[in-house]
């Protein structure tokens, strides 16, 4: 058996440059988790459940469908970074207030997906929220509390003019 091929990449993760030698087959989600960022969850590894949602160069992406080597030179943000930035604080508070999470496994991905919606549509309808979040499975809540939380934040943000 030959030695495994690795490629050295540098990815800016949550604002910090990270250099690592990775196998070409390693997914971005596995890379992030191996680097200790355990908030990115792996639910299906085939791009359906949305638990591994992260932001790559400002847009949400499935961490399981992108290879780490594809992110060489790119900026990746995970739930840890988004939390530290404070940008999700009102959404996170609303998720807690509405009990929009039970087991919490889908929650990091769900928050990043909801955040992306609210960046593009200030006051989406409930159905628009439901449709946007349909790429993120939640097995516990039945989704209503999540929709309530996102709707509440949209209205508050609109009310504050931000």
């Amino acid at each position, binding site marked *: 058996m030959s030695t495994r091929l690795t490629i050295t990449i540098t990815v800016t993760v949550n604002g910090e440059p990270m250099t690592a030698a990775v196998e070409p087959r390693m997914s971005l989600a596995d890379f992030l988790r191996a680097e200790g960022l*355990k908030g990115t969850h792996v639910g299906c590894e085939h791009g359906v459940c949305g638990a591994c949602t992260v932001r790559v160069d400002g847009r949400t992406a499935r961490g399981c469908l992108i290879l780490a080597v594809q992110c060489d030179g790119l900026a990746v943000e995970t739930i840890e970074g988004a*939390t530290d930035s404070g940008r999700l604080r009102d959404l996170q508070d609303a998720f807690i207030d509405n009990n929009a*999470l039970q087991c*919490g496994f889908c929650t990091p991905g769900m928050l990043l997906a909801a955040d992306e919606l609210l960046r593009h549509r200030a006051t989406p309808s*409930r159905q628009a929220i*439901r449709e946007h979040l349909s790429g*993120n499975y939640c097995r516990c809540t039945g*989704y*209503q509390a999540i929709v309530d939380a996102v709707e509440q934040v949209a209205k508050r943000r609109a009310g504050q003019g931000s």
Partner: protein
Amino acid sequence: MTEPGPISSLDRPNSYIGRAVPRPNARRLVEGRGSYVDDIDLPRMVHLAFHRSPYAHAEIKAVDTEEARTMPGVVGVFTMDDLKDRITPWVGVLDHLKGIKSAEQWPLADGKVFSQGEPIVAVAATSRAIAEDAAERVTVAYEELPPVTDMMTALDPATPVIHPELRDNLCFHRVLDTGEVDAVFASAAAVVEDSFHFNRHTGVTLEPRSIVCDYNPADGQLTLHMSVQCPHMSKNLYARHLGLDEDRVRVVCRDVGGSFGIKIHTYADEMAAGAIAVKLGRPVKFVADRLESFVTDIHARDHKVKARAAFSAEGELLAIDMEDVTGIGPFSVYPRTSGIELNQVVNLTGGPYRHAHYRVDGKVVFQNKNVMCQYRGVGHPIAVAVGEHLMDLGARKLGLDPVAVRRRSFIPEDAYPYTSPSGAIYERQSHQACLEKLVEAMDYAGLRAEQNALRAGKTYRGIGFASLIEVTNPSPAFYGVGGARIASQDGCTLRLDPTGGITATTGVTEQGQGTETIIAQIAATAVGVPIDKVRVITGDTDLVPYGGGTWASRGAGIGGEAALQAGKALRQNILELAATILQAKPVDLDVRDGAVVDDASGVERMPLAELGRIAYFRGDTLPKDVQPELIATRHYTQRGYPFVFTNAAHACHLEVDAETGIVRLLKYWVVEDCGRVINPKLVAEQTRGGVVQGIGPALYEECLYNAEGQLLNGSLADYLLPMAAEMPDIEVLHVETPTGTSELGAKGVGEAGTAGAPAAIMNAINDALSPFEVTLSDMPFTPDKILRALGKIPIREKSAGT
């Protein structure tokens, strides 16, 4: 014992009972700071991957692991022969399920495989990727055996017997007959009947099954980091089958990414991980991937039912007669068995109604498919759907309203406690109150008027009802009497720390439903402290009182009562010590908002932090005969009835597109009576999540097998789950009938949503399609089945085995 006891202990000045307190553990989950099993990395840890059978039924002729063993990074390759000195097999039977039988099950295949996905060879390597690479290099020579897949022919003499030592493919057979059933049917004003199919589906916990087994040979200690519902049960099972001292097996369960009954069973691959950890003397991690989950996580349901009901001319349900066949895969699952689901169907069908005559013949049969076992709702969805569909058919045949036949048939309010024809005892239920509240909340009359008006324009809306009962707060009658070491009692320890804070440990467990929150609410209320002073620890068998964990909707009712009693005991200890320090009588003092107060005036006498300081650091200032005991433990076993039943009334409003067959859910209502409501928000969210887990299999979810026993849609790309866009808003209302079996008065709520939703969906679809005079009872109600029923596309012959 039908009236609830006094509630003075709950009705305290700073009571948190009945308040929608947010969950204290939610913050770390929204910040991605949870701790799931796959987040654990231990020194020298190896990762497992399995070579699994592609066949549903085959004899293993040869296994070649040579290439896998020599791959760099591979630490060990194991067949069953390599592990037989480390583990013993198990058999999923219980003494009280008369006649139930199953075969010995090993963690890896022992010469034969009985279902697709059964593990044959385990590979331990320094990474999961390397382990998977090596598992692919294992070659196995098989001789295919004829697969038994169709449960309806599993017992035919021509069908091969899966386990020859069992003589046939019958796992369990239960018959119940109250007598005179034929006579009642012969003289009834109306008789209705139908055949049902309850599809195989599965739980799809977003966090797959995961385990880290950490064996330390130096002290013989096995620490299991598990994603489970019942840590003490797991501790016992691993000790028993690995031949370890049970006192040296520790289960640590932190965050669980969904369970719903999936993570409560014995899984071959997880047991193999335990044996390999002992063998290697280093930590072993196994995390199922999604494809493994689909073929190995327990499946649910898979019933075919034929049922009929007899009614009086006034619409009163008189009798039910039914046959149920359940396919459970090749083994009865250990240790809870795959017979309990049938038992529940038998016990619960027609549960809300006073039908005196009842006959059931239920058979549980083996097949070469994945195993079926207890999943959220256990039997209830079948029992409720059969009973409620028969109620609607009866109403239709008699020209009565479905609400009217239910009102007519409910067990009368003055008949409690009531013994059902299956022998279940209902303490007190509120079917009438729930249904009336439901009808009002949904504006039933308005919806009917709208339905009629819209039909003229070929818009077909339907309204479906489901009244139900749910088994909660089980006594030892569930498993303990059957010989399984699954505790029905639970305990709670509350300790007052020198800071005035309370550390609570409880045997019940958290999977996101809010167990830790309600234990904190109860403890804070019973002791008399602000809720943010209570910290709750669950899931670690080295720390928490021995208990059953989470199953059968018991966390709040059993664990909550233990917490209440522990809180009362700790408060009494605090008051006695405070009385000594303050030279007062305990009876004249109380604990409120974290301070000892004068009971009559409420004036603060001493903060608990000061009491703690004296107790822990200045015992020298106390009288010599006073030893502070600022800790209390209480346990609770529900012994009033075999089970404490809850009840609920559901309604679904939906629209069926008669051209496309697509069902659009418009609204859903639940009036739930789970006794004392500890936290209305958590009850509502348990109910909503439960309803959606009932909607899924009614409309979308099905594990589709072909006649060879191959799962055809075992990935999330192919298996359809409820998504946000299709789900309705669900309104949850409450009726509170506290149970008199405990001071807390709480019953369970975790499964009632799942129990009722398939029935309400089925009834609403049939109501929508009533102008076409068709009825559907073959779940899931996919567009193609609806269009076939409407004659829009041809009827398709179902292939055998599906």
